[in-house]
């Protein structure tokens, strides 16, 4: 187990370096010179040069990358061009809400997706199956903002639930109420793939010999489906969920923007629109690093579910 974690950590290093390199190059190709912006419109050429030297912008590119790496390792991501606050401070406040939103989404979407998929597999070919599968295809085809628009219009607009901003931590009443619509939106695109994968996988295990054996032993249908078929069907589903959680980050960017949810994604979009490059770079890097971290956790969890994987 430990070896697996270490191995995966080592594999993550080149990817992480790649992300950092892209993040660094992001600021290099930006058309505006940060020194000119920092110096202000009235600065003389000499003042600009001084700032360039101070920022290390006159050194060769690889040296700048080295310095950049050192700064990032010390959690220094630069300062916002708009508020002049350290980027890290700005980002710190957004991590919690994004994590909260994803958690709230997964808590309902995973069980519902698996339950729907199992039900569809049990009733294969009947109308329940068809309706569930039709919904799942619709869910996969629906741009996430369409779900958001419909929920905001019909549920939020009717005054049933709040749809703007965050109401506080999840354990408070207001916080819980505020997270319902964003979590529903984000989960709506998550259920389809999970239900589909569960259905395929359960169909396979329902045809397996051990399920026939369980039936022959006289186990109840409930026990056969839940203990024998579903349990063995879960590994591909977990893999898919792992992959999808990464993509959930992308969905979170849209959901946060629509519901004014104060998360990383909304900050990234806002910073890009207002050309606040350091913040945009920081936010994108945080998203990328979270993505790598999530995959790491999923890999390890996967190894725990199926011990054969760790030994490969």
């Amino acid at each position, binding site marked *: 187990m430990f070896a697996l974690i270490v191995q995966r950590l080592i594999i993550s290093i080149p*990817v992480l370096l790649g992300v950092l390199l*892209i993040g660094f*190059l*992001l600021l290099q*190709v*930006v*058309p505006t010179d940060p020194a000119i912006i920092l110096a202000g419109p009235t600065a003389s050429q000499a003042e600009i040069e001084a700032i360039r030297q101070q920022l290390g912008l006159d050194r060769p590119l690889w040296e700048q990358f080295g310095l950049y790496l050192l700064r990032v390792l010390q959690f220094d991501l630069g300062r916002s061009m708009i508020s002049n606050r350290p980027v890290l401070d700005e980002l710190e406040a957004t991590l919690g809400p994004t994590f909260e939103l994803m958690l709230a989404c997964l808590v309902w979407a995973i069980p519902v997706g698996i339950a729907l998929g199992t039900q569809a597999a049990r009733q294969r070919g009947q109308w329940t199956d068809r309706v569930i599968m039709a919904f799942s*295809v*619709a869910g*996969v*085809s*629906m*741009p*996430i*903002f*369409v779900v958001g*628009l*419909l929920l*905001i*219009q019909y549920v939020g*607009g009717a005054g049933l639930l709040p749809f703007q901003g965050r109401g506080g931590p999840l354990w408070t009443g207001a916080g819980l109420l505020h997270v319902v619509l964003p979590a529903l939106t984000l989960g709506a695109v998550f259920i389809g793939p999970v239900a589909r994968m569960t259905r395929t996988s359960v169909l396979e295990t329902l045809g397996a010999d051990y399920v026939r054996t369980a039936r022959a032993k006289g186990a109840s249908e409930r026990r056969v489906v839940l203990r024998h078929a579903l349990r063995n069907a879960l590994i591909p589903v977990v893999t898919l969920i792992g*992959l999808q959680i*990464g*993509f959930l*980050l*992308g*969905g979170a*960017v*849209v959901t946060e*923007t*629509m519901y004014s949810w104060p998360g990383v994604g909304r900050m*990234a*979009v806002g*910073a*890009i*629109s207002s050309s606040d*490059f350091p913040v*945009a*770079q920081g936010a*994108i890097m945080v*998203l*990328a690093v979270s*993505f790598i971290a999530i*995959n790491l956790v999923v890999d390890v969890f996967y190894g725990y579910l199926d011990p054969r994987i760790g030994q490969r």
Partner: protein
Amino acid sequence: MTDAILAEADARALEALRRKNSIIRRLLRDPPATLALAFLVLILLGALLAPWIVPYDPFANSMRLRLKAPGFVGPDGALYLLGTDAQGRDILSRILYGLRATIGIGAIAVLCGGGLGVLIGTLAAYYRRLDTPLMRFIDVLLSFPSILFGLALAAVLGPGLFSLCVALSIAAIPTIARVARGAATVVMQQDYMEAGRALGLGDGALIWRYLLLNCGSTILIYATLQLGQSILLGSVLSFLGLGAQPPFAELGSMTADGRKFLQAFPHVATIPALTIFFIVLAFNVLGDALRDALDPKLRQ
């Protein structure tokens, strides 16, 4: 006697033809897939013919005609079938132009990204040494959320159609590369590849004349399906304001425009949003049907 033999030969020839057309026939026997195909043809026609069939100028503002509901009839008897938006522009005309933009952007992405994907996939299948490094690279690309590419490119190049197309192209590479590699690996095992090599054909000729031409149809089918995904992603990025910029008519940015009036005038945002949904849905339904038709394991 001769007649009977001829009749049997005819029957066999027809049978062979029928088998050849079976994929299309199977599709046409599947009502949802037929419906999806018909819908897509209609949408494509609408997009292609937009300049000739739009009832009004999609960019002409009119303060008098702001935010009219679908079915609105103007004082001069002009009918606005889908209503007007916040600038008094006819939504139907904008949708038709938006289709052009949305589908066009998706098509560019599939052409550029798909082209690169085909190159990577066939090279990986042809040169075994390149297989592992190329496909590892594709795996990394595949596992990365495409919206992040969109965000990063918009940050670097500035939000706009160019960065949108680049982001969508990158996102289209991995799927097509995998399909191309799979198809090319099958072709590599065929005898005619061996024969071509024995005839002294060079790598370039073998790849171009035998490998690519024989994978073509499979790749083309999956590239068409990828179009649905590219349209979906493109509309999401445009919705975030990272793609098409106003007043350019694009379905995603039109939805974003209409968001401000969602409570009082829901049609402004909902009509373009649902249009995207139905297009992507049609692509996915068609895609599922095609995959079933192509996959012999599922044929029963």
